[in-house]
């Protein structure tokens, strides 16, 4: 369908998305937003897998399944993360990452 779009365009997009996700992880104060940044990262990787699979190695479905599994992992990660975040909210009444520096040095 979109075979005429160069592979590198997809990769640029996914890479940018990947680093945007990291950027979000680095600057957002809210734990949930950080979690969302993580989702961005994983999503960008998924695009990579899918695109590689489609453009380069369409004979097998490695990339496809990799993405599938990553989505599942992302879901479970999110579940646990949110559970902990809620716990933190209970303890701190806030989910600002700035509060989380009781332990340092």
């Amino acid at each position, binding site marked *: 369908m979109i075979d005429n779009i160069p592979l590198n365009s997809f990769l640029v997009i996914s890479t940018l998305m990947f680093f945007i996700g990291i950027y979000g*992880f*680095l*600057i957002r104060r809210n734990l949930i937003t*950080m979690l969302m940044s993580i989702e961005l990262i994983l999503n960008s990787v998924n695009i990579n897998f899918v695109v590689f699979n489609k453009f380069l190695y369409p004979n097998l479905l490695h990339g496809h399944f990799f993405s599938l599994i990553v989505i599942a992992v992302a879901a479970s990660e999110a579940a646990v993360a949110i559970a902990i975040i809620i716990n933190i909210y209970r303890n701190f009444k806030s989910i600002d*990452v700035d509060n*989380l520096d*009781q*332990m*340092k*040095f």
Partner: protein
Amino acid sequence: MNSYAYTLLIPLIPLFVFVFVGMAEDKLKGKLGGLIGTAGLGIGTFLSYYTAYKYFIADHVAGTGYTSFKAVEVTWLHLTDKLTINLGVLIDPISVMMLVVITTVSFMVHIYSLGYMEGERGFARFYAFLSLFSFSMLGLVLATNLFQMYIFWELVGVSSFLLIGYYYEKPSAFSAAKKAFIVTRFADLGFLIGILMLSFNTGTFDFQTLTDPHGLAIASTGGAVFMGLSVITWALIFIFIGGAGKSAMFPLHIWLPDAMEGPTPVSALIHAATMVVAGVYLVARLFPVYAQGGPVALEVVAWVGAFTSLFAAVIATTQTDIKRVLAFSTMSQIGYMMLSLGVSGYGGEEGLGFMASNFHLFTHAMFKALLFLGAGAVIHAVHSNDMNEMGGLRKFLPITHLTFLIACLTIAGIPPFSGFFSKDEILVAAFHSNKILFGIEYFVAGLTAFYMFRLYYNIFWGHDRHYHHTPHEAPLVMTVPLMILAFGSIFSGFLPFHNLVTSDGLGFESHIDWMIAIPSILAGVVGIAVATVMYKTKNALPEKLSKSFSFFYRWAFHKFYIDEVYLFVTKKIIFNYISRPVAWFDRHIVDGTMNGIAGMVQFASVSIRGLQTGRVQQYGFVFLGGVVALVLIFVYLF
């Protein structure tokens, strides 16, 4: 092994006595320790005389020279491939002569001390040390090789140290002992370096090999040259430093006056008759090497000897401590002996100085021991060393007085006392070699007579003092040795030394050169006369004289401030300017560096703590930074 093997016992008996008495010190009651020691040495003395008789007379084939041979020898240590250290007994004229001297004087001192040291705390300890000293000294003279000599040399040093420091509770006694040890040790350093050089170049320590005229030591004198002198010459000079230390030659003499802190019998034994002549003996022992291998070294010996004799004699005229006067006199006399060796040639008539030196050594041992023991008797009687606190003692101490007078006459060189003969030979030898040296010695001869009689008059004449206790003559056990030694002083001059103890073992004809003898007797008489005028009765003359030469007198009285110079060097330079900075450097620089490294680690540890802020985003940042850095380095820079 041969018929002289028994000589091994002469040193060994005192050693056993030392070990036994030393270990059982607490258990020995009363004089038991002393008696054991005296008995041991008595046997040694007997054996020594027997050896002398056997060697010089019984076994001697007329017309031949006296040979040297080893009575016993065992290997003690393999040092290097070619060097072994042996221990043994060497018999030759000088060693046998020394045996006689040492055992005689030592035996006398042993007997004398039974009285003198009576009631002292550590009486047995005293005898143990005396025995140790006797052992060491005998081992020294019997040494078959240079290294054995060094071993016993050191042992002599330590026994001297122990005996000087006998009254260890007196700080002055111990510091004197310490000084003696360290100064002689410093000299021994020279000795050791000399031994190292000599043995390295010749491959042997053995005296017989070394002194063999055709041996390597003498043959290799033309070898490597350092600062204009051959290595052998340097080695000999270094060895002489060792000898100078023990024999209290200038400038290593400073320990000897202080050593008088020891008990008087010790001074008589060690610091008059035996140990201090070890330096002379050392040079005499290596004499062929000196004479043929290092004439320059021999010249050094001569000049040092001459200077010391003059220097010491001058100081002796000003001292008031009777033992110190005797000590300086000893230095002066040893200077004579050294000079005599220094001006001597090798072989036959040429070797007159060598013979004279040994001769003087022999006679000096007798009369100087006598003087010291006499002084001991005086001190015993008045409990003081200071001649200003004495006077008129001739009435109280008749025997002491008489023997002391004999000794003074002997040392002043008045015939027919033995000192005259030996000193005369020295002057002859000096006269034939170097007129300046002769002049010095001639002057010293007069000076000697003067200060000895100054001493004599101050003690036994002058006005009477009021003593706390009336002085009384020493017991028999003390006076008998005095008498025996006086006997020796009088008659030992007649021994035919020129036939017995010569540089090459062969005898030669000797006669008294009256052209030199008469002026020297005159010098002695003048010296006595001046002393008589000044000191026989109390008058103002000495006072005036010292006033008019006040500068010179003060310097001489303070022993030319050599002690102060030494004190400066040891206290200031070594302690404060070397040791203190070293200690500081060690604590602050070296240790500081080590602690500094630890401190740096600690500092690094503190300074990177900011890395761990506890903020998860910063962790992520570092993580990303790490990834980027790795990519940069390993993808793009590599």
